[in-house]
């Protein structure tokens, strides 16, 4: 027994502890907490909430207002109403439009009328017969009308085009099914190319220096605002203008929130009367794009492909140029939901079975079956899973300029969210200058930014010119006003009294179509002050005291037997009297066999037990309830006047679920009764629960 002593030496001189107040500056260092939105939970960060919103999409979230119709010759509606189809029997043709569709192939329709076919699908060599099928939303229909199959020229002439509506998912895809001379067959997606196209360097007969005349070609020259076309063969020609020759804005090819959204402008060349003068609107900077391998081909990487059906993909750009024989290959990479590469496809046979970078994925050749350059559709020989993201590297025939000076993705360029971008074209631009420029207009209509620096034929509109204030700047000017005459629109654009006649092509602003009600929110907070389950082993190893804390075994610590005592839980069903094969002594020996000699084992038999409660609120009645211990168990209720004497069975039940109850009635008030519950399972009656006593009211 201990007696604690406080010994004080020389009490008279002992000075009790004094307090001294010291002035202190307290520096509180608090870790900077940062609330961030992340796609994955990084180690060390604490997840608070999971938010899921509809992803931004350039198709849906960019409002592009087309203003290019202000010059009538550049209006798409005028082209469609005025530019009807012409038929000429000549090798020369003149049009006010730069781009035309021309053909000398015709077919006779069901009404007996001769109609032109503007597109041609090239069949493989050796085709003996073929048919054209259309697959629309899963239904396969053989196409008879509007198709002319010419085996002699290995061609299918048609006006049909493959179509896919991204908004609704509706599609209409044509397939050409054919048989070859060797008896085999095949199926390709329809790849309609213009019957007649502009001649290029590859269409020159090197022996004669003349244009090849075995397939339709034409040359094009500009002539004071009109275009002259010369064909390489005579006969009847059917010609109609197409909108690709107009100068118009196109939506960005990038769709996702993590892609850049660069607006595109077609390589149009339009001449027309604007502000009382003939002016030419064209895009000289188109020729300065990085063409690869030659103009007008451009190589583009990591472009997203959308899924039309299980085997058909479509490029978001809309056009691709694939020609494996000419080295213009298409590579596709499929990624799973976690961004891990799962498959890689290519049209390049030399890459087949080679490793993709340092992964375990190998390039697969022969899986990309066929493609449609005009619509960007690709037909695969394998199923593309819905959860894959497919990206591809390919060449495309550029017919537009990607305006990379402005990224319209609001996540990358926050200015898009509350401002408007105005894109305009300066007429009569010299070669080497830039025709298309942009303005940044604030939400209250004031110009904040202008990209127009001085060119050969136009002045600078920026704030500074050689670091000196530019009095001709439009910065700070209103873009448009009903009242103010000094606005950009009145001073510079087509349709007003000025000599500049800039053509506004598009006004682009961000459309926030999100609704808070559509946001998915899940609270993922965890109870704090807890060890990360993945770090638990390392935490215990570095600080073993955590085991005996609430982070480990609990606040009471690990249950350990004192004096070497070990409690050994054994199911009672091992005993013979409860359906087993062993006697108690055998169990004792068995469980103690491998115990340390200094230990003392105590065998505790376990079995299902109910917790019994009794109440008596009504005279002569006792209400009993006991807990349900599992399905398929029978509960036997006994009672007695003396727990040392015999027990009488009162009630038995096999409930499906829930607390069990029984009411014992017609009892003598004031008497003391004892109750207990036994559980019977598979005809084995386990020992009874602890009995409860109650005095009847």
């Amino acid at each position, binding site marked *: 027994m201990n007696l*604690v002593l406080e010994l004080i030496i020389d009490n008279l001189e002992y000075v009790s502890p004094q307090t001294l107040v010291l002035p202190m500056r307290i520096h509180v260092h608090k870790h900077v907490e940062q609330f961030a939105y992340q796609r994955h939970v990084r180690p060390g960060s604490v997840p608070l909430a999971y938010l899921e919103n509809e992803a931004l999409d350039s198709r849906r979230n960019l409002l592009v207002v087309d203003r290019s119709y202000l010059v009538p010759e550049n209006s798409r509606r005028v082209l469609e109403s005025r530019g009807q189809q012409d038929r000429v029997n000549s090798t020369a043709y003149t049009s006010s439009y730069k781009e035309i569709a021309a053909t000398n192939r015709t077919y006779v329709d069901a009404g007996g009328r001769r109609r032109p076919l503007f597109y041609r699908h090239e069949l493989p060599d050796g085709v003996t017969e073929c048919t054209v099928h259309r697959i629309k939303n899963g239904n396969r229909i053989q196409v008879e009308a509007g198709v002319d199959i010419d085996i002699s020229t290995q061609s299918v002439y048609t006006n049909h085009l493959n179509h896919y509506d991204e908004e609704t998912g509706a599609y209409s895809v044509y397939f050409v099914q054919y048989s070859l001379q060797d008896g085999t067959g095949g199926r390709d997606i329809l790849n309609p190319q213009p019957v007649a196209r502009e001649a290029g360097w590859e269409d020159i007969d090197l022996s004669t220096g003349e244009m090849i005349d075995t397939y339709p070609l034409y040359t094009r020259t500009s002539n004071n605002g009109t275009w002259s076309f010369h064909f390489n063969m005579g006969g009847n020609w059917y010609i109609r203008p197409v909108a690709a020759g107009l100068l118009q804005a196109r939506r960005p090819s990038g769709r996702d929130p993590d892609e850049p959204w660069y607006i595109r402008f077609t390589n149009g060349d339009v001449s027309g009367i604007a502000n009382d003068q003939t002016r030419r609107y064209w895009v000289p900077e188109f020729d300065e794009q990085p063409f690869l391998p030659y103009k007008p081909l451009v190589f583009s990487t990591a472009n997203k492909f959308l899924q039309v059906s299980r085997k058909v993909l479509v490029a978001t750009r809309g056009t691709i140029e694939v020609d494996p024989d000419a080295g213009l290959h298409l590579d596709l990479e499929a990624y799973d939901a976690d961004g891990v590469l799962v498959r890689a496809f290519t049209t390049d046979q030399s890459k087949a079975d080679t490793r993709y970078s340092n992964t375990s994925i190998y390039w697969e050749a022969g899986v990309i079956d066929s493609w449609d350059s005009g619509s960007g559709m690709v037909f695969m020989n394998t199923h593309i899973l819905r959860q894959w993201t497919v990206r591809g590297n390919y060449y495309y025939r550029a017919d537009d300029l990607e305006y990379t000076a402005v990224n319209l993705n609001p996540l990358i360029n926050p200015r898009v969210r509350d401002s408007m971008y105005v894109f305009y074209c300066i007429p009569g631009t010299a070669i080497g200058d830039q025709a298309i420029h942009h303005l940044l207009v604030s939400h209250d209509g004031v110009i904040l930014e202008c990209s127009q620096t001085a060119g050969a034929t136009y002045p600078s509109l920026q704030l500074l010119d050689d670091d000196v204030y530019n009095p001709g700047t439009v910065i700070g000017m209103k873009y448009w006003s009903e009242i103010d005459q000094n606005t950009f629109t009145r001073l510079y654009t087509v349709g007003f009294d000025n000599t500049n006649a800039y053509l506004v092509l598009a006004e682009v602003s961000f459309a926030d179509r999100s609704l808070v009600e559509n946001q998915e929110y899940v609270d993922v907070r965890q109870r704090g002050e807890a060890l990360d389950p993945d770090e638990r082993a390392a935490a215990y190893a570095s600080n073993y005291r955590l085991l005996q804390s609430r982070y480990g075994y609990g606040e009471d610590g690990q249950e350990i037997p004192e004096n070497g005592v070990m409690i050994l839980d054994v199911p009672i069903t091992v005993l013979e009297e409860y359906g087993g094969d062993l006697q108690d002594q055998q169990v004792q020996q068995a469980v103690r066999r491998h115990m340390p000699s200094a230990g003392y084992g105590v065998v505790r038999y376990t079995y299902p037990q109910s917790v019994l409660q009794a109440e008596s609120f009504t005279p002569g009645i006792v209400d009993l309830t006991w807990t349900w211990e599992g399905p398929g168990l029978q509960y036997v209720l006994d009672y007695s006047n003396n727990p040392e004497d015999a027990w009488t069975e009162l009630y038995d039940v096999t409930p499906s679920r829930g607390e069990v109850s029984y009411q014992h009635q017609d009892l003598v008030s004031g008497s003391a009764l004892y109750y207990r519950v036994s559980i019977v399972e598979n005809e084995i009656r386990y020992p009874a629960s602890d009995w409860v006593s109650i005095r009847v009211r």
Partner: protein
Amino acid sequence: MGLEDLVFEDVAEAEVIFDPLRIQSAVSRTVRVTNQGEDDLHGLGMYLQSGTSLGDLDAPADNPPETDYQDLLTWGTKTDGGVTLAGGMKLTLPQNIGANQVSYITRTAGATARNKLPFKDLAAGESAEFSILLETPSGVTSRRLYINLTLE
């Protein structure tokens, strides 16, 4: 267990001792121990152990418990060995036979359970008194120590 039934009482205050008993140097303090158990206790002895109390917030120990324990043993050993004139803890303990035994706590007597100082047997319900004196060793400045005095 019988030893758990030993109760210490401060004779001067006539109170059972629960908190550390304050003993000033050079002032002897008498303590009564009572065997309130049902068993007679034999072979009792008293010895010193490192204090289990560090004192309260207003009166903490000046040194760690082990330092206090060792210092007391050193002082008592030096005094008992004649090196110094005074210093250490002196106990006056009742015996079974004969007068009370007065002895310093030294490293060889009263420092551990093995060399505990003999104490008279206590029958069930019997009490005995002993006294504690702390001598100030020379050269030691004012100091507060906490120590455990064990009877078993």
